[in-house]
């Protein structure tokens, strides 16, 4: 059974609230900053943070998610768009459509890279301890952590199911038709297995006192909330407020 990779990068080292606040700010800024330069620069900044922050591998799943959007937006807006046209080599592109495609691609990319960095760097135990220190109720902290942790767990399970099905002769790679044929044999055990896992985990957690009543959970190792974390979080909030103010003024 494959174990999950240990979280890497700035998001894993920072106080758990910091990457969450920053990623929410990224979502807001992607739509508030002037287009198309703003979203594109934001995306570029996040790519640099991924590389310099110690988790360049985050860009691989991010690219798998973002590239299809780029292609789709380019076809829809730049190639099929109307208004003034400009010829670029063999292609005739809509000027307005190209700008729109760049803007939306930048937004998607920024949001996707930020989300992937947060999910890959997420450490549920640290998050729960940080949330308890901040006064969250235990169940809210646990449910939030479990939800954010569900994506990597689901991915692990998908890999296990895929390996099991390939060992039974299912072809999961190749042409689009081959992949489409493999979808049902992969999806069905994945979903049924996930439901079974939820049952088993619920039983296990119940007997380990997740539902204990009348007591406050003890945070085991609350992470340090450093001055740098606070600065980054407040910086992100101020950046969003500044962008909102700019939108009103401009």
């Amino acid at each position, binding site marked *: 059974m494959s174990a999950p990779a240990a979280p890497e990068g700035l998001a894993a080292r920072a106080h758990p609230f910091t990457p969450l606040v920053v990623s929410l700010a990224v979502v807001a800024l992607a739509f508030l900053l002037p287009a198309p330069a703003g979203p594109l620069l934001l995306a570029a900044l996040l790519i640099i943070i991924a590389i310099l922050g110690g988790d360049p591998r985050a860009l691989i799943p991010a690219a798998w998610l973002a590239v299809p959007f780029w292609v789709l937006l380019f076809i829809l807006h730049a190639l099929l768009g109307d208004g003034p046209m400009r010829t670029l080599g063999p292609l005739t592109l809509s000027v307005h459509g190209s700008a729109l495609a760049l803007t939306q691609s930048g937004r998607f990319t920024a949001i996707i890279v930020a989300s992937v960095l947060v999910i890959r760097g997420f450490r549920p135990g640290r998050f729960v301890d940080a949330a308890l220190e901040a006064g969250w109720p235990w169940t809210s902290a646990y449910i939030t952590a479990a939800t954010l942790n569900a994506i990597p767990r689901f991915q692990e399970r998908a890999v296990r199911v895929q390996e099991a099905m390939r060992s039974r002769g299912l072809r999961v790679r190749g042409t689009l038709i081959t992949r489409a044929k493999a979808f049902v044999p992969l999806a069905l055990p994945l979903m049924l297995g996930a439901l079974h896992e939820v049952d088993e985990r619920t*039983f296990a957690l119940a007997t*380990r006192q997740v539902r204990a*009543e009348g007591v406050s959970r003890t945070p085991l190792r609350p992470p340090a909330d450093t001055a740098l974390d606070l600065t980054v979080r407040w910086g992100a909030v101020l950046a969003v407020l500044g962008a909102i103010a700019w939108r009103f003024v401009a």
Partner: protein
Amino acid sequence: MSAIEFSRVSFRYPTSGPVLRDVTFEAPAGRVTWIFGPAGAGASTLLLAAAGLAPGLTGGSLEGSVRILGQDPGSRSGRGAVQGKVAYVTATPYLQLSGMAESVFDEVAFAPANIGWDRARIEAAVPEALARLGIGHLADRIPEELSGGEQQRVVLAAMFVLRPDVWLLDEPTSALDGTGRELVRAFVRAEAERGCVVLFATEDAELGLALADEMVLLDEGSTVARGIPADLLGTELMWAMRAGSTGVGELARAANRLAGERAAHLAPPYPLTVEAAVERWR
């Protein structure tokens, strides 16, 4: 007072027919009781009902009375009264990890932290629990990266840390190698000697024979027989129920069937261990 009492318990899941039918038995403290039957007999469901998880979390309906340490584990007050006193372990250790811990130490500390123990108490209790299961050297490892056998011992330690009075074990050694099985067997026996009630389900007749003081035979959700494992496992009832027996018991029965009426010394009750077979057939 028995630590676990089932009185005329019937249970069905929301989408199934009856899984338990009119089950009555008691499991006293200080003894190991084995629930045995063919696949689908209802042993796992019986443990879920004892833990208060069925129908509480599974849904379905339960008739009759389940008492554990004198409380109804399905009621809110009963659950509160037995909080931390009932350990439940299944055959899939990977699914019993909290998913919240970055180390085995934190995994074992999960339940004590949930019931509000202070850090000093947790820091003292966890190493003791790890040592008890022979996994002190794994304290800093990531639980998800351990082997199935190691994870099973982590799960047991994560329950033992609360010093439960009741152990409900569903195929507790399924992921273990020979050494791990022996360790868990010794651990369970020691827990019974500490005064705990142990109720476990396994289809491994060798394990049941070695571990249990008493067995409850289930078939299609009903109690068929109760008794000492050594007395029941060698009888034809086990094959009539399709439950089977130990490896030696299976062999002895096959020999009896081949020999027919010519060999009275091969007749049931069959020997269950190599030692018993040598003694009988010498």
